[in-house]
């Protein structure tokens, strides 16, 4: 659904009101003020792909499940659910008497309609892959590709008003991670059919089912939400108003926080991190996210096709020093790919994880020499990275370590983000400062990205890995599946096609009077669980 402009008349009217800017209400104590960084990309729950806008939408919409402050899955619109023995079918039971914010009854079909709209090519949503790739809901791919328009093919159905059934082609215990509002917000069909996608930014018309409703939207400035009296748990929602503020510059956001204009920041400036952690440790929240940073090696590059050399490069990096003394952004050093997100996963690490850094470096030098490089014949490579300060610091640190430990001459090729994204597919790089944001806090979202048969194109031929992943994908229970995934990850790590670097953290400042904010790897922080004291 493409929106056309409301015409030049409105444009002129806007320009004419130049001198008539209304005086807004002063910040009140009954409002929780939260930072969302730069502009959110969309308030359309079936389209938005931004984590920051996801917070706004998580307040306004509730999925079948919800996430408590620590990120644990708790019942949302569904009060309970059960899986079939083969793990391919999940049945969700909705709470009794659920209502939309306008008082309309909220029924199971509304959730099915949300998924149908996400998959519909006319919606131009990038989120359909959650349902045909991350989990494989029957019929989802055909709908997303436009092969059919028939909603009956979708393996997600509403046999009655309080039951949602999801049928998948393969078992996927991580389905519950995808049943929250970010992936699965219900659709209020009457208001959407009346006004199209414009309804989601129109406070007068938007109908939602979360703890809050949208009251005011000013692009690039703020979104104001008010408590939804029709929410099933409204009695336990303590804060009457939540306001999300756009502040592009992190330095300005810090000042707004210090001035009391913002209660929870989007980020913390790197330059102030150490000082703030020392001065106000109780207000600084730094915890791992699902944002993994790793340096990919181009396997078609003449030097890097050599496994010993790739291994030497990975071992020569002292990750503790890199994150703690050079990057200083709170990153968590990692020697794994799918580990560090779900504590239940027995994550494999690179084979040399048990060695000391000195031992790793000695081995790295040995492997480097074995691969045929030395002082007379140094390795010459470049790291392709974006211009973001934190990424440049990390690349400079890595290049320094490669120089110091191996004598390799590595330069840094920094570029704008979009250019960097495109460079990957041109294959015209040797080391790529790569990253991946997981769809949920578990190993599988990362490991399936690396499948040789999957999209991204690392040029890695490894039928054993595909086979191990296929085998794991047949296991319906999480513990058993994790054993299979760990087996696959062992194969992945042993080929050193990348050097795992760090898990990028979330960095927030939270005012002492805000209670109910906790570290959550999944990154959901619903305002409904917070209080202002």
């Amino acid at each position, binding site marked *: 659904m493409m929106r056309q*402009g409301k015409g030049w008349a409105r*444009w002129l009217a806007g320009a004419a009101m130049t001198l008539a800017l209304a005086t807004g209400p002063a910040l009140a104590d009954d409002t929780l003020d939260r930072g969302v960084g730069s502009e959110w990309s969309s308030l359309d729950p079936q389209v938005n792909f931004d984590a920051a806008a996801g917070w706004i939408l998580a307040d306004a919409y509730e999925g079948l499940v919800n996430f408590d402050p620590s990120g644990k899955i708790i019942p949302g619109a569904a009060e309970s659910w059960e899986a079939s023995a083969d793990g391919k079918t999940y049945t969700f039971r909705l709470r009794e008497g659920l209502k939309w914010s306008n008082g309309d009854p909220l029924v199971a079909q509304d959730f099915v309609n949300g998924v149908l709209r996400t998959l519909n090519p006319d919606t131009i949503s990038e989120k359909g892959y959650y349902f045909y790739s991350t989990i494989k809901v029957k019929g989802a791919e055909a709908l997303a590709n436009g092969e059919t328009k028939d909603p009956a093919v979708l393996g997600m159905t509403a046999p009655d008003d309080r039951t949602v059934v999801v049928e998948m082609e393969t078992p996927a215990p991580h389905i519950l991670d995808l049943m929250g509002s970010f992936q699965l917000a219900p659709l209020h069909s009457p208001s959407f059919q009346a006004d199209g996608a414009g309804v989601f930014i129109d406070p007068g018309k938007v109908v939602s089912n979360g703890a809050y409703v949208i009251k005011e939207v000013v692009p690039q400035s703020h979104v104001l939400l008010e408590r939804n009296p029709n929410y099933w748990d409204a009695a336990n929602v303590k804060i009457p108003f939540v306001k999300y503020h756009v502040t592009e510059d992190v330095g300005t956001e810090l000042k707004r926080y210090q001035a009391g204009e913002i209660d929870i920041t989007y980020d913390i400036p790197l330059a102030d991190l150490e000082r703030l952690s020392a001065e106000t440790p109780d207000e600084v929240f730094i915890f791992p996210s699902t944002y993994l940073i790793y340096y990919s090696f181009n396997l078609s590059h003449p030097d890097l096709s050599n496994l010993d050399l790739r291994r030497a490069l990975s071992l020569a990096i002292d990750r503790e020093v890199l994150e703690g003394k050079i990057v200083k952004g709170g990153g968590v050093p990692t020697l794994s790919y799918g580990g560090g997100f779900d504590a239940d996963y027995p994550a494999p690490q690179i084979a040399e994880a048990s060695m000391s850094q000195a031992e790793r470096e000695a081995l790295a030098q040995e492997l480097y020499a074995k691969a045929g490089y030395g002082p007379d014949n140094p390795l010459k490579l470049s790291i392709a990275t974006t211009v973001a300060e934190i990424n440049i610091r990390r690349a400079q640190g890595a290049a320094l370590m490669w120089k110091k430990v191996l004598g390799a001459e590595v330069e840094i090729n920094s570029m704008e983000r979009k250019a960097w994204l495109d*460079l990957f597919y041109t294959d015209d790089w040797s080391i790529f400062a*790569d990253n991946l944001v997981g769809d949920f806090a578990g190993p599988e979202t990362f490991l399936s990205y690396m499948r040789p048969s999957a999209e991204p194109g690392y040029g890695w031929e490894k039928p054993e890995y595909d086979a191990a992943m296929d085998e794991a994908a047949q296991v319906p229970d999480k513990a058993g599946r994790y054993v299979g995934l760990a087996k696959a990850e062992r194969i992945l790590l042993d080929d050193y096609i990348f050097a795992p670097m760090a898990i990028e953290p979330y960095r927030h400042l939270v005012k002492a009077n805000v209670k109910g904010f906790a570290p959550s790897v999944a990154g959901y922080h619903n305002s409904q669980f917070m209080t202002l004291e």
Partner: protein
Amino acid sequence: MLRFIGKRLWHGGLTLAALVTLTFFVMRLAPGGPFSRNRKISPEVQANIEAAFHLDEPLWQQFGRFVWGVLRLDLGPSTRHRDYSVNDLIASGLPYSLTIGFWAIVIAALVGVAFGLAGALRRNSATDYLAGTIGVVGIAVPIFVIGPLAQAFFSLRLEWLPVGGITEGWRSLVLPILVLALPNIAYISRITRTSMIETLRENHVRTARAKGVGWRRVLTSHVLTGALLPVIAYLGPATAAVITGSILIETVFAVPGIGRHFVDAALNRDYPLVMGITLLYGSLLILFNIATDVVRAILDPRIRHER
């Protein structure tokens, strides 16, 4: 005079057309597109998204579509801000940019001219040195240094004004306006002072004085009109620049104007938004330049007769 304006408008239109055409094609040379991501989605879905924004068409056809849109005053949908069209985004951001720019230039003109006059009339006095100092500071110290300093002092220490945002009405606009005005105060006072000193030495001024015309009268009707010509010449482009070029101000003070959109749009390859803002900025710049020329022509007959 009408012919003069008509000719200027015609040239302005040609310049704008060249600017827009060049921007359209040069922008496409930059690597990456609006939907580049590191997580590739299914090729069918990717193709569908690109087709929805007509990115699958040949470039000349996309250009034709853009021109046709401009003629209908429809700048198309934004590829990044999916809830809004480019017209919507400009309509929502422009009032903030205009408000801040307008007041900044008014303050800059009044204060700048006053400082300049005072400096020229009382050279090497305390006022002259004060104006000179403000001039040096205003020109030499960039906005991204003065802005945070002003926030630290007025907002965090004195707690008079908010740090950023626009949610506190006029109080939210005071700092951005003053910080934006500062470099312009500096330029305008320097221009006024130099030009005043020059004009005071001119023959017609000396003649008027010799004929016994009073000092006050000489100043108002003989000196000022001449001395302010360069200031007016500066004000036109400066007004356009202040309205359109307050990107730093908008970033530092979290003002939801269009300046910020411009940079974000370019970085995100939001082609329709880049084109919309280029068109707007180009038009403003050209119109203000024409307005300046017209005012100067009214004040100075020599300019009118040049061509």
